[in-house]
Protein backbone atom coordinates (compact mmCIF):
# COMPACT_ATOMS: atom_id res chain seq x y z
CA UNK A 1 0.00 0.00 0.00
CA UNK A 2 1.43 3.33 -1.02
CA UNK A 3 2.25 6.03 1.47
CA UNK A 4 -0.15 8.38 -0.32
CA UNK A 5 -3.03 5.93 0.02
CA UNK A 6 -2.42 5.55 3.73
CA UNK A 7 -2.32 9.30 4.31
CA UNK A 8 -5.46 9.85 2.20
CA UNK A 9 -7.26 7.06 4.04
CA UNK A 10 -6.40 8.58 7.41
CA UNK A 11 -7.80 11.97 6.37
CA UNK A 12 -10.98 10.40 5.01
CA UNK A 13 -11.51 8.28 8.13
CA UNK A 14 -10.97 11.28 10.42
CA UNK A 15 -13.11 13.76 8.51
CA UNK A 16 -16.01 11.49 7.64
CA UNK A 17 -15.91 9.44 10.81
CA UNK A 18 -15.95 6.48 8.41
CA UNK A 19 -15.48 2.78 9.09
CA UNK A 20 -11.80 2.14 8.15
CA UNK A 21 -12.71 -1.12 6.42
CA UNK A 22 -14.91 0.74 3.96
CA UNK A 23 -12.26 3.32 3.08
CA UNK A 24 -10.79 1.45 0.09
CA UNK A 25 -9.52 2.81 -3.22
CA UNK A 26 -12.82 2.26 -5.00
CA UNK A 27 -14.92 3.90 -2.27
CA UNK A 28 -16.84 6.99 -3.37
CA UNK A 29 -16.93 9.71 -0.74
CA UNK A 30 -20.59 10.49 -1.39
CA UNK A 31 -22.03 7.11 -2.44
CA UNK A 32 -20.12 4.83 -0.06
CA UNK A 33 -18.84 6.92 2.81
CA UNK A 34 -21.76 9.22 3.66
CA UNK A 35 -20.17 12.49 2.55
CA UNK A 36 -22.07 15.40 1.05
CA UNK A 37 -20.81 18.14 -1.28
CA UNK A 38 -19.54 20.23 1.64
CA UNK A 39 -17.60 17.27 3.03
CA UNK A 40 -15.96 16.88 -0.37
CA UNK A 41 -14.80 20.50 -0.29
CA UNK A 42 -13.38 19.95 3.17
CA UNK A 43 -11.62 16.74 2.15
CA UNK A 44 -9.94 18.49 -0.75
CA UNK A 45 -8.77 21.25 1.60
CA UNK A 46 -7.37 18.61 3.94
CA UNK A 47 -5.52 16.91 1.07
CA UNK A 48 -4.03 20.26 0.06
CA UNK A 49 -2.79 20.84 3.55
CA UNK A 50 -1.44 17.32 4.12
CA UNK A 51 0.48 17.16 0.86
CA UNK A 52 1.26 20.86 0.54
CA UNK A 53 -0.25 21.07 -2.93
CA UNK A 54 -2.94 23.12 -4.61
CA UNK A 55 -5.95 21.33 -6.07
CA UNK A 56 -7.78 23.64 -8.50
CA UNK A 57 -11.60 23.65 -8.33
CA UNK A 58 -12.03 21.98 -11.74
CA UNK A 59 -9.71 19.14 -10.69
CA UNK A 60 -11.43 18.86 -7.31
CA UNK A 61 -14.73 18.16 -9.03
CA UNK A 62 -13.26 14.96 -10.46
CA UNK A 63 -11.97 13.65 -7.15
CA UNK A 64 -14.90 11.45 -6.15
CA UNK A 65 -13.21 8.36 -4.74
CA UNK A 66 -10.27 7.54 -2.50
CA UNK A 67 -8.45 6.25 -5.59
CA UNK A 68 -9.14 9.48 -7.54
CA UNK A 69 -7.51 11.43 -4.74
CA UNK A 70 -4.46 9.18 -4.55
CA UNK A 71 -3.99 9.28 -8.33
CA UNK A 72 -4.27 13.07 -8.50
CA UNK A 73 -1.92 13.60 -5.57
CA UNK A 74 0.70 11.17 -6.84
CA UNK A 75 0.68 12.80 -10.28
CA UNK A 76 0.91 16.24 -8.71
CA UNK A 77 3.80 15.22 -6.46
CA UNK A 78 5.61 13.57 -9.39
CA UNK A 79 5.41 17.01 -11.04
Amino acid at each position, binding site marked *: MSDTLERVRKIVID*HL*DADPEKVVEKASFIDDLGADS*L*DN*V*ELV*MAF*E*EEFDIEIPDDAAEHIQTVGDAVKFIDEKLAG
Partner: protein
Amino acid sequence: MRRVVVTGLGLLTPLGWGVEHNWKGILEGRSGIGPITNFDTEGYGCTIAGEIPSVDGRGGGAPGQPGVFDHEKVMSPKDRKRVDDFIVYAIAAADEALADAGWKPETEEQRERTGVMVGSGIGGLGPIADTAIILKEQGPRRVSPFFIPSALINLTSGQISIRHGLKGPNHSVVTACATGAHAIGDAARMIMLDDADVMVAGGAESSIVPIGIAGFLACKALCTAYNDAPEKASRPWDKDHSGFVMGEGAGIVVLEEYEHARARGATIYAEVVGYGMSGDAYHITAPAEDGEGGYRAMQMAVKRAGIDVSDIDYVNAHGTSTMADWIEAGAIEKLMGDHAPNVALSSTKSMTGHLLGAAGAIEAIFCILAIRDQIAPPTINLDNPERETALNLVRDKGQPMEIDVAMSNSFGFGGTNASVIFRKVG
Protein backbone atom coordinates in the same frame (compact mmCIF):
# COMPACT_ATOMS: atom_id res chain seq x y z
CA MET B 1 -58.72 32.82 17.07
CA ARG B 2 -57.30 29.33 17.67
CA ARG B 3 -56.02 28.70 21.19
CA VAL B 4 -52.37 27.76 21.74
CA VAL B 5 -51.05 25.62 24.58
CA VAL B 6 -47.65 24.42 25.72
CA THR B 7 -47.21 20.64 25.61
CA GLY B 8 -43.44 20.12 25.74
CA LEU B 9 -40.42 21.65 27.48
CA GLY B 10 -36.65 21.37 26.99
CA LEU B 11 -33.85 23.06 28.93
CA LEU B 12 -30.07 23.18 28.79
CA THR B 13 -28.61 25.90 31.04
CA PRO B 14 -25.64 26.60 33.31
CA LEU B 15 -27.53 24.59 35.93
CA GLY B 16 -27.41 21.55 33.67
CA TRP B 17 -29.30 19.44 31.18
CA GLY B 18 -32.98 18.61 31.55
CA VAL B 19 -36.10 20.44 32.67
CA GLU B 20 -36.62 18.72 36.01
CA HIS B 21 -32.95 18.96 36.96
CA ASN B 22 -33.00 22.69 36.23
CA TRP B 23 -36.24 23.32 38.05
CA LYS B 24 -35.05 21.57 41.20
CA GLY B 25 -31.90 23.72 41.22
CA ILE B 26 -33.86 26.90 40.61
CA LEU B 27 -36.27 26.26 43.48
CA GLU B 28 -33.33 25.53 45.78
CA GLY B 29 -31.67 28.78 44.76
CA ARG B 30 -28.60 27.18 43.21
CA SER B 31 -26.17 29.32 41.19
CA GLY B 32 -24.84 28.02 37.87
CA ILE B 33 -22.10 30.67 37.66
CA GLY B 34 -18.41 29.78 37.86
CA PRO B 35 -14.97 30.61 36.47
CA ILE B 36 -14.78 30.55 32.65
CA THR B 37 -13.16 27.30 31.53
CA ASN B 38 -13.72 27.67 27.78
CA PHE B 39 -10.68 29.93 27.24
CA ASP B 40 -7.84 31.61 29.10
CA THR B 41 -9.31 34.77 30.65
CA GLU B 42 -5.96 36.42 31.40
CA GLY B 43 -6.39 40.13 30.64
CA TYR B 44 -10.20 40.05 30.66
CA GLY B 45 -12.04 42.24 33.18
CA CYS B 46 -14.64 39.50 33.57
CA THR B 47 -13.46 35.92 34.17
CA ILE B 48 -16.76 34.29 35.16
CA ALA B 49 -19.86 33.06 33.35
CA GLY B 50 -22.60 30.48 33.41
CA GLU B 51 -21.11 27.69 31.32
CA ILE B 52 -22.97 24.44 30.75
CA PRO B 53 -21.44 21.71 32.92
CA SER B 54 -20.21 19.15 30.39
CA VAL B 55 -18.63 15.69 30.57
CA ASP B 56 -15.46 17.10 29.00
CA GLY B 57 -14.88 19.20 32.13
CA ARG B 58 -16.18 22.45 30.74
CA GLY B 59 -18.20 24.51 33.21
CA GLY B 60 -17.05 22.32 36.11
CA GLY B 61 -18.79 19.25 34.71
CA ALA B 62 -17.70 15.64 35.16
CA PRO B 63 -19.00 12.30 33.88
CA GLY B 64 -21.77 10.93 36.06
CA GLN B 65 -22.66 14.32 37.57
CA PRO B 66 -26.45 14.90 37.68
CA GLY B 67 -27.57 17.04 34.75
CA VAL B 68 -24.16 17.00 33.07
CA PHE B 69 -24.22 17.66 29.33
CA ASP B 70 -22.75 15.23 26.83
CA HIS B 71 -22.35 16.55 23.27
CA GLU B 72 -21.91 13.03 21.92
CA LYS B 73 -25.39 12.04 23.05
CA VAL B 74 -26.69 14.75 20.72
CA MET B 75 -24.40 14.59 17.68
CA SER B 76 -21.57 12.54 16.26
CA PRO B 77 -18.15 14.24 16.08
CA LYS B 78 -18.57 14.39 12.29
CA ASP B 79 -21.84 16.31 12.52
CA ARG B 80 -20.58 18.61 15.25
CA LYS B 81 -18.13 20.33 12.95
CA ARG B 82 -21.09 21.60 10.94
CA VAL B 83 -22.58 23.45 13.90
CA ASP B 84 -21.51 25.95 16.51
CA ASP B 85 -22.43 25.16 20.10
CA PHE B 86 -25.60 27.26 20.10
CA ILE B 87 -27.02 24.92 17.46
CA VAL B 88 -26.04 21.82 19.46
CA TYR B 89 -27.77 23.33 22.49
CA ALA B 90 -30.89 24.12 20.46
CA ILE B 91 -31.01 20.56 19.13
CA ALA B 92 -30.55 19.08 22.62
CA ALA B 93 -33.36 21.18 24.10
CA ALA B 94 -35.63 20.53 21.10
CA ASP B 95 -35.09 16.76 21.43
CA GLU B 96 -36.17 16.96 25.07
CA ALA B 97 -39.17 19.19 24.34
CA LEU B 98 -40.47 16.98 21.51
CA ALA B 99 -40.00 13.83 23.57
CA ASP B 100 -41.75 15.51 26.51
CA ALA B 101 -44.65 16.47 24.26
CA GLY B 102 -44.78 12.95 22.84
CA TRP B 103 -45.06 14.50 19.40
CA LYS B 104 -43.47 12.57 16.56
CA PRO B 105 -45.09 13.56 13.27
CA GLU B 106 -45.37 10.55 11.00
CA THR B 107 -47.69 11.42 8.15
CA GLU B 108 -46.78 13.97 5.51
CA GLU B 109 -49.61 16.21 6.69
CA GLN B 110 -48.42 16.09 10.29
CA ARG B 111 -44.92 17.02 9.16
CA GLU B 112 -46.16 19.92 7.08
CA ARG B 113 -48.24 21.20 10.00
CA THR B 114 -45.29 21.19 12.42
CA GLY B 115 -42.88 24.11 12.21
CA VAL B 116 -39.83 25.50 13.99
CA MET B 117 -39.11 29.00 15.28
CA VAL B 118 -35.86 28.98 17.24
CA GLY B 119 -33.62 32.02 17.38
CA SER B 120 -30.40 33.28 18.86
CA GLY B 121 -29.21 36.72 19.90
CA ILE B 122 -25.81 36.53 18.30
CA GLY B 123 -25.33 33.13 16.69
CA GLY B 124 -21.93 31.73 15.79
CA LEU B 125 -19.62 34.36 17.23
CA GLY B 126 -16.94 31.73 17.93
CA PRO B 127 -16.61 30.41 14.36
CA ILE B 128 -16.87 33.94 12.95
CA ALA B 129 -13.92 35.07 15.08
CA ASP B 130 -11.89 31.91 14.45
CA THR B 131 -12.51 31.98 10.71
CA ALA B 132 -11.57 35.65 10.47
CA ILE B 133 -8.14 34.69 11.83
CA ILE B 134 -7.79 31.82 9.34
CA LEU B 135 -8.80 34.15 6.51
CA LYS B 136 -6.22 36.74 7.51
CA GLU B 137 -3.38 34.31 8.19
CA GLN B 138 -3.98 31.64 5.52
CA GLY B 139 -6.17 33.26 2.89
CA PRO B 140 -9.63 32.57 1.46
CA ARG B 141 -8.95 29.00 0.27
CA ARG B 142 -8.60 27.75 3.85
CA VAL B 143 -12.07 28.85 4.97
CA SER B 144 -14.13 25.80 5.91
CA PRO B 145 -17.22 24.93 3.85
CA PHE B 146 -18.96 24.45 7.19
CA PHE B 147 -18.19 27.94 8.46
CA ILE B 148 -21.35 29.66 7.19
CA PRO B 149 -23.85 26.89 8.10
CA SER B 150 -22.25 26.58 11.55
CA ALA B 151 -22.66 30.27 12.32
CA LEU B 152 -26.02 31.19 10.75
CA ILE B 153 -28.66 31.79 13.40
CA ASN B 154 -31.56 30.18 11.53
CA LEU B 155 -29.62 26.92 11.25
CA THR B 156 -31.05 26.24 14.72
CA SER B 157 -34.48 25.93 13.12
CA GLY B 158 -32.99 24.32 10.02
CA GLN B 159 -31.11 21.60 11.91
CA ILE B 160 -34.09 20.83 14.17
CA SER B 161 -36.37 20.51 11.15
CA ILE B 162 -33.96 18.17 9.35
CA ARG B 163 -33.48 16.02 12.44
CA HIS B 164 -37.20 15.57 13.14
CA GLY B 165 -38.64 15.91 9.63
CA LEU B 166 -40.62 19.05 10.45
CA LYS B 167 -41.79 20.64 7.21
CA GLY B 168 -43.99 23.47 8.46
CA PRO B 169 -43.00 27.14 8.80
CA ASN B 170 -39.25 27.39 9.39
CA HIS B 171 -38.33 30.71 10.87
CA SER B 172 -35.89 32.28 13.29
CA VAL B 173 -35.85 35.32 15.54
CA VAL B 174 -32.92 37.69 16.14
CA THR B 175 -33.85 40.35 18.68
CA ALA B 176 -30.89 40.23 21.06
CA CYS B 177 -32.01 39.39 24.58
CA ALA B 178 -35.71 39.40 23.65
CA THR B 179 -35.21 36.60 21.07
CA GLY B 180 -36.62 33.71 23.12
CA ALA B 181 -39.75 35.61 24.10
CA HIS B 182 -40.38 36.87 20.57
CA ALA B 183 -39.88 33.34 19.20
CA ILE B 184 -42.54 31.90 21.50
CA GLY B 185 -44.96 34.79 20.92
CA ASP B 186 -44.54 34.76 17.15
CA ALA B 187 -44.72 30.97 16.90
CA ALA B 188 -47.95 31.02 18.92
CA ARG B 189 -49.36 33.48 16.40
CA MET B 190 -48.49 31.15 13.52
CA ILE B 191 -50.63 28.50 15.19
CA MET B 192 -53.41 31.01 15.92
CA LEU B 193 -53.41 32.03 12.24
CA ASP B 194 -53.57 28.37 11.16
CA ASP B 195 -50.13 28.29 9.51
CA ALA B 196 -49.28 25.28 11.68
CA ASP B 197 -50.75 23.03 14.38
CA VAL B 198 -47.50 22.52 16.28
CA MET B 199 -44.46 24.79 16.60
CA VAL B 200 -41.10 24.08 18.20
CA ALA B 201 -40.08 27.48 19.58
CA GLY B 202 -37.37 29.06 21.69
CA GLY B 203 -33.84 30.39 21.73
CA ALA B 204 -30.23 29.26 22.04
CA GLU B 205 -26.93 30.99 22.73
CA SER B 206 -23.22 30.18 23.02
CA SER B 207 -21.36 33.48 23.31
CA ILE B 208 -18.94 32.60 26.12
CA VAL B 209 -16.04 33.01 23.73
CA PRO B 210 -13.23 35.60 23.82
CA ILE B 211 -14.83 37.99 21.35
CA GLY B 212 -18.21 37.73 23.12
CA ILE B 213 -16.84 38.51 26.56
CA ALA B 214 -14.56 41.26 25.20
CA GLY B 215 -17.44 42.77 23.24
CA PHE B 216 -19.88 42.93 26.14
CA LEU B 217 -17.09 44.20 28.42
CA ALA B 218 -16.55 47.04 25.98
CA CYS B 219 -20.28 47.86 26.23
CA LYS B 220 -19.78 48.17 30.02
CA ALA B 221 -22.58 45.65 30.44
CA LEU B 222 -20.75 42.71 32.07
CA CYS B 223 -20.18 42.06 35.77
CA THR B 224 -16.57 42.77 36.77
CA ALA B 225 -16.75 42.94 40.58
CA TYR B 226 -17.26 39.28 41.50
CA ASN B 227 -14.52 37.36 39.69
CA ASP B 228 -13.54 35.81 43.02
CA ALA B 229 -17.12 34.96 44.07
CA PRO B 230 -18.90 33.83 40.90
CA GLU B 231 -22.01 32.47 42.63
CA LYS B 232 -22.62 35.94 44.10
CA ALA B 233 -22.14 37.79 40.82
CA SER B 234 -25.67 37.89 39.40
CA ARG B 235 -27.74 39.92 41.87
CA PRO B 236 -30.73 41.66 40.29
CA TRP B 237 -32.18 44.61 42.30
CA ASP B 238 -29.42 44.28 44.91
CA LYS B 239 -27.54 47.46 45.81
CA ASP B 240 -24.22 45.74 45.07
CA HIS B 241 -25.05 44.68 41.50
CA SER B 242 -22.20 45.01 39.01
CA GLY B 243 -23.51 44.13 35.56
CA PHE B 244 -24.84 41.00 33.92
CA VAL B 245 -23.17 37.59 33.98
CA MET B 246 -23.20 35.76 30.67
CA GLY B 247 -24.81 32.35 30.44
CA GLU B 248 -25.17 29.84 27.61
CA GLY B 249 -27.67 27.18 26.66
CA ALA B 250 -31.13 26.80 25.18
CA GLY B 251 -34.79 26.75 26.09
CA ILE B 252 -37.34 25.19 23.75
CA VAL B 253 -41.08 24.70 24.06
CA VAL B 254 -43.53 22.74 21.96
CA LEU B 255 -46.56 24.92 21.25
CA GLU B 256 -49.71 23.28 20.00
CA GLU B 257 -53.21 24.19 18.94
CA TYR B 258 -55.51 23.43 21.88
CA GLU B 259 -57.88 20.96 20.17
CA HIS B 260 -54.93 19.21 18.48
CA ALA B 261 -53.33 18.68 21.90
CA ARG B 262 -56.59 17.52 23.46
CA ALA B 263 -57.36 15.12 20.64
CA ARG B 264 -54.12 13.22 21.13
CA GLY B 265 -54.34 13.33 24.93
CA ALA B 266 -51.20 15.45 25.36
CA THR B 267 -50.23 16.86 28.74
CA ILE B 268 -51.06 20.56 28.67
CA TYR B 269 -48.78 22.71 30.83
CA ALA B 270 -50.36 26.11 30.18
CA GLU B 271 -51.94 28.31 27.55
CA VAL B 272 -50.14 31.16 25.78
CA VAL B 273 -52.72 33.87 26.30
CA GLY B 274 -50.89 37.16 25.92
CA TYR B 275 -48.06 38.60 23.89
CA GLY B 276 -46.98 42.21 23.72
CA MET B 277 -44.17 43.94 21.84
CA SER B 278 -42.78 47.45 21.72
CA GLY B 279 -39.76 49.51 20.79
CA ASP B 280 -38.12 52.12 23.01
CA ALA B 281 -36.91 54.40 20.19
CA TYR B 282 -34.37 55.64 22.70
CA HIS B 283 -30.86 54.15 22.88
CA ILE B 284 -28.88 51.26 21.38
CA THR B 285 -28.03 49.58 24.70
CA ALA B 286 -29.83 51.41 27.54
CA PRO B 287 -33.55 51.14 28.28
CA ALA B 288 -35.71 54.26 28.25
CA GLU B 289 -35.24 55.83 31.66
CA ASP B 290 -38.85 55.54 32.79
CA GLY B 291 -39.23 51.99 31.43
CA GLU B 292 -42.09 53.09 29.24
CA GLY B 293 -41.17 50.66 26.44
CA GLY B 294 -41.31 47.66 28.75
CA TYR B 295 -44.49 49.07 30.26
CA ARG B 296 -46.20 49.20 26.89
CA ALA B 297 -45.11 45.63 26.01
CA MET B 298 -46.61 44.35 29.28
CA GLN B 299 -49.75 46.43 28.78
CA MET B 300 -50.24 45.03 25.27
CA ALA B 301 -49.73 41.46 26.51
CA VAL B 302 -52.36 41.98 29.23
CA LYS B 303 -54.79 43.43 26.69
CA ARG B 304 -54.23 40.54 24.25
CA ALA B 305 -54.76 38.06 27.08
CA GLY B 306 -58.12 39.65 27.83
CA ILE B 307 -57.27 39.69 31.53
CA ASP B 308 -56.98 42.32 34.21
CA VAL B 309 -53.58 43.09 35.72
CA SER B 310 -55.01 41.83 39.01
CA ASP B 311 -55.10 38.33 37.47
CA ILE B 312 -51.29 38.22 37.26
CA ASP B 313 -49.72 36.22 40.08
CA TYR B 314 -46.06 35.93 39.10
CA VAL B 315 -43.70 37.93 36.92
CA ASN B 316 -40.34 36.58 35.76
CA ALA B 317 -38.45 39.81 35.17
CA HIS B 318 -35.83 40.52 32.56
CA GLY B 319 -33.76 41.54 35.64
CA THR B 320 -30.18 41.24 34.38
CA SER B 321 -28.32 42.51 37.47
CA THR B 322 -27.76 45.96 35.95
CA MET B 323 -29.00 49.53 36.40
CA ALA B 324 -32.01 48.53 34.30
CA ASP B 325 -33.48 46.25 37.01
CA TRP B 326 -35.24 49.01 38.93
CA ILE B 327 -36.42 50.69 35.75
CA GLU B 328 -38.24 47.46 34.93
CA ALA B 329 -39.52 47.04 38.49
CA GLY B 330 -40.84 50.61 38.37
CA ALA B 331 -42.72 49.84 35.15
CA ILE B 332 -44.20 46.68 36.74
CA GLU B 333 -45.24 48.66 39.85
CA LYS B 334 -46.92 51.23 37.64
CA LEU B 335 -48.73 48.53 35.66
CA MET B 336 -49.91 46.66 38.75
CA GLY B 337 -51.00 49.67 40.80
CA ASP B 338 -52.80 48.54 43.97
CA HIS B 339 -52.33 44.89 42.97
CA ALA B 340 -48.51 45.16 43.33
CA PRO B 341 -48.28 43.53 46.80
CA ASN B 342 -50.00 40.42 45.38
CA VAL B 343 -47.50 40.04 42.55
CA ALA B 344 -44.53 37.74 43.10
CA LEU B 345 -41.49 39.00 41.20
CA SER B 346 -38.15 37.31 40.61
CA SER B 347 -35.25 37.07 38.21
CA THR B 348 -33.96 33.57 37.62
CA LYS B 349 -30.95 35.17 35.89
CA SER B 350 -29.55 35.44 39.42
CA MET B 351 -28.93 31.68 39.08
CA THR B 352 -28.58 30.99 35.35
CA GLY B 353 -26.83 34.20 34.36
CA HIS B 354 -28.06 35.96 31.24
CA LEU B 355 -28.51 33.57 28.33
CA LEU B 356 -29.10 36.45 25.88
CA GLY B 357 -31.19 35.05 23.02
CA ALA B 358 -32.13 31.96 25.04
CA ALA B 359 -33.12 33.91 28.17
CA GLY B 360 -36.71 34.65 27.17
CA ALA B 361 -37.35 31.00 26.36
CA ILE B 362 -35.85 29.48 29.50
CA GLU B 363 -37.65 32.06 31.62
CA ALA B 364 -40.94 31.33 29.86
CA ILE B 365 -40.36 27.69 30.86
CA PHE B 366 -39.80 28.72 34.48
CA CYS B 367 -43.13 30.63 34.33
CA ILE B 368 -44.85 27.55 32.94
CA LEU B 369 -43.35 25.34 35.67
CA ALA B 370 -44.38 27.91 38.29
CA ILE B 371 -47.95 27.45 37.07
CA ARG B 372 -47.61 23.65 36.98
CA ASP B 373 -46.22 23.35 40.51
CA GLN B 374 -47.84 26.42 42.08
CA ILE B 375 -44.54 27.82 43.29
CA ALA B 376 -42.72 31.03 42.40
CA PRO B 377 -38.99 30.67 41.69
CA PRO B 378 -36.70 33.00 43.65
CA THR B 379 -34.06 35.63 43.05
CA ILE B 380 -30.81 34.79 44.83
CA ASN B 381 -28.17 37.26 46.06
CA LEU B 382 -30.85 39.89 46.65
CA ASP B 383 -29.39 40.65 50.07
CA ASN B 384 -30.04 44.39 50.15
CA PRO B 385 -32.67 45.63 47.71
CA GLU B 386 -31.48 48.95 46.33
CA ARG B 387 -34.96 50.41 46.65
CA GLU B 388 -38.21 49.71 48.45
CA THR B 389 -41.02 48.20 46.46
CA ALA B 390 -44.60 47.12 47.03
CA LEU B 391 -43.96 44.06 44.84
CA ASN B 392 -43.36 40.69 46.51
CA LEU B 393 -39.67 40.00 45.85
CA VAL B 394 -39.31 36.23 46.16
CA ARG B 395 -35.85 35.54 47.56
CA ASP B 396 -33.48 32.60 48.00
CA LYS B 397 -35.97 29.68 47.76
CA GLY B 398 -39.14 28.96 45.79
CA GLN B 399 -42.30 30.39 47.35
CA PRO B 400 -45.39 28.14 47.21
CA MET B 401 -48.42 30.17 46.17
CA GLU B 402 -51.45 30.10 43.91
CA ILE B 403 -50.31 30.86 40.37
CA ASP B 404 -52.89 30.89 37.58
CA VAL B 405 -51.24 33.54 35.43
CA ALA B 406 -47.53 34.24 34.95
CA MET B 407 -45.79 36.81 32.78
CA SER B 408 -42.25 36.73 31.39
CA ASN B 409 -40.46 39.94 30.34
CA SER B 410 -37.55 40.16 27.93
CA PHE B 411 -35.87 43.32 26.72
CA GLY B 412 -33.05 43.58 24.19
CA PHE B 413 -30.38 45.94 22.88
CA GLY B 414 -31.83 48.26 20.31
CA GLY B 415 -34.75 48.95 22.62
CA THR B 416 -36.83 45.88 21.77
CA ASN B 417 -39.30 44.60 24.37
CA ALA B 418 -41.47 41.51 24.62
CA SER B 419 -43.82 40.18 27.28
CA VAL B 420 -45.51 36.80 27.16
CA ILE B 421 -48.34 35.71 29.45
CA PHE B 422 -49.16 32.09 30.30
CA ARG B 423 -52.31 30.87 32.02
CA LYS B 424 -53.23 27.64 33.73
CA VAL B 425 -55.62 25.50 31.68
CA GLY B 426 -58.64 23.72 33.12
